[in-house]
């Protein structure tokens, strides 16, 4: 009886784990949908900003801005790592950290002063484990990063860059490409490489825009805005990708649990049947012995 009972106990525990993973899958599905909606909403803004920059550029304006200029000296660099607050999401955190470590080494070797900022408990503890103390940590970015929250960071970086206290900003995050494709990337956000002015639609060439107050003054505002939105997009992408990663991991876990349950059920039934058979044999054997 002992073996069958042990099998049954294991099956029970796997069933309850399956319930947990299944629930987590459902929760992350719901969260993913919400995060996805926010990403789509943000992309409407990004698209319009890009269009606006395109129109500005086509009006024959020389696009120059302090944020677009690369600082010649290699003084201080910053690495921002966006990881998750929670685990159980497959390779999400590890693939980010796999990119973050080498980049951090590189920055500390080449630049005079490198600062590290990490969002997400997982990333913080991983860096601590390697005896690297992040200069700033954030754990308040959950699955719904708000623009106001990200804006606080963006403003700090912008001010530092313009003042010359920061020469480069790299962000490690998981880029969301499609439902089935997300991968960790390192992007250099400062200096801003380009504003993404797409010269795609050429048919409406040179609409004579009226600029209020002037194209240069508008550009002065557009460049920081486009940086803010880029940073916000990084956070949104990271949030969406985290939920997808968790969804996939939990789905796999639930399926594994299903497999284990059916396997254990079979073993349990066999063991029980075997026990019954042996008990029957004992009784028959005993009766035979008595009747003789």
């Amino acid at each position: 009886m002992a073996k069958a009972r042990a099998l049954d106990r294991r099956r029970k525990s796997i069933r309850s784990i399956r319930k947990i993973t299944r629930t987590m899958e459902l929760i992350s599905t719901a969260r993913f949908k919400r995060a996805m909606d926010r990403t789509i909403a943000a992309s409407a803004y990004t698209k319009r900003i890009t269009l606006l920059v395109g129109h500005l550029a086509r009006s024959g304006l020389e696009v120059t801005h302090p944020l677009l200029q690369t600082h010649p000296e290699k003084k201080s660099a910053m690495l921002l790592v966006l990881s998750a607050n929670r685990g159980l999401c497959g390779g999400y955190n590890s693939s980010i950290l796999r990119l973050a470590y080498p980049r951090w080494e590189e920055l500390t070797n080449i630049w005079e002063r490198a600062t590290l900022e990490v969002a997400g408990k997982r990333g913080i503890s991983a860096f601590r484990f390697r005896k690297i103390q992040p200069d700033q940590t954030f754990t308040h970015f959950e699955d719904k990063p708000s623009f106001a929250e990200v804006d606080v960071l963006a403003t700090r970086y912008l001010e530092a860059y313009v003042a010359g206290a920061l020469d480069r900003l790299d962000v490690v995050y998981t880029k969301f490409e499609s439902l089935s494709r997300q991968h960790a990337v390192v992007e250099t956000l400062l200096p801003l490489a380009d504003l993404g002015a797409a010269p795609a639609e050429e048919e409406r060439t040179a609409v004579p825009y009226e600029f209020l107050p002037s194209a240069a003054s508008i550009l002065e505002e557009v460049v920081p805005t486009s940086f803010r939105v880029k940073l916000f997009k990084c956070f949104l992408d990271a949030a969406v990708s985290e939920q997808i990663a968790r969804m996939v991991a939990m789905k796999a876990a639930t399926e594994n649990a299903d497999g284990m349950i059916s396997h254990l059920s079979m073993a349990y039934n066999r063991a029980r049947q075997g026990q019954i058979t042996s008990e029957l044999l004992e009784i028959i054997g005993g009766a035979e012995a008595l009747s003789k």
Partner: protein
Amino acid sequence: MLHCIVVTPEQTLYDQTAEFAAMMLFDGEIGIAPGHTPMIGRLGYGEMRIRRGGQIDRLYVEGGFVEVLDDEVSVLTQRAMPAAEVDEAVAREQLSAARSRRASTPETIAQRDRAVEQCRAQLRTARRAR
């Protein structure tokens, strides 16, 4: 008819056809009627009014840009909300906090002035929405 769109990084707040729209530019109010010349402008802080079918929608818009092209008015802003949702009490509190903030360098003075202006614009918008 005008096609009026207000987008923030978090959502598309407003998307309607209208007859007339007025908003705060960096130096004063601008009214936009159908047939307006193509324009890109810097917005200030303040109320945006949109008239459609006899009713007037009021929004609070905090900075950003407006682009007018082919009777489409797109407002890109970091923060916007319906005027009715502006919390007067909070705005007043923030105003007094901003005014009592100590500022010594040109940047901090500019920051303080911006905060004060934003709060005043909120109060003005809220008062008009009542």
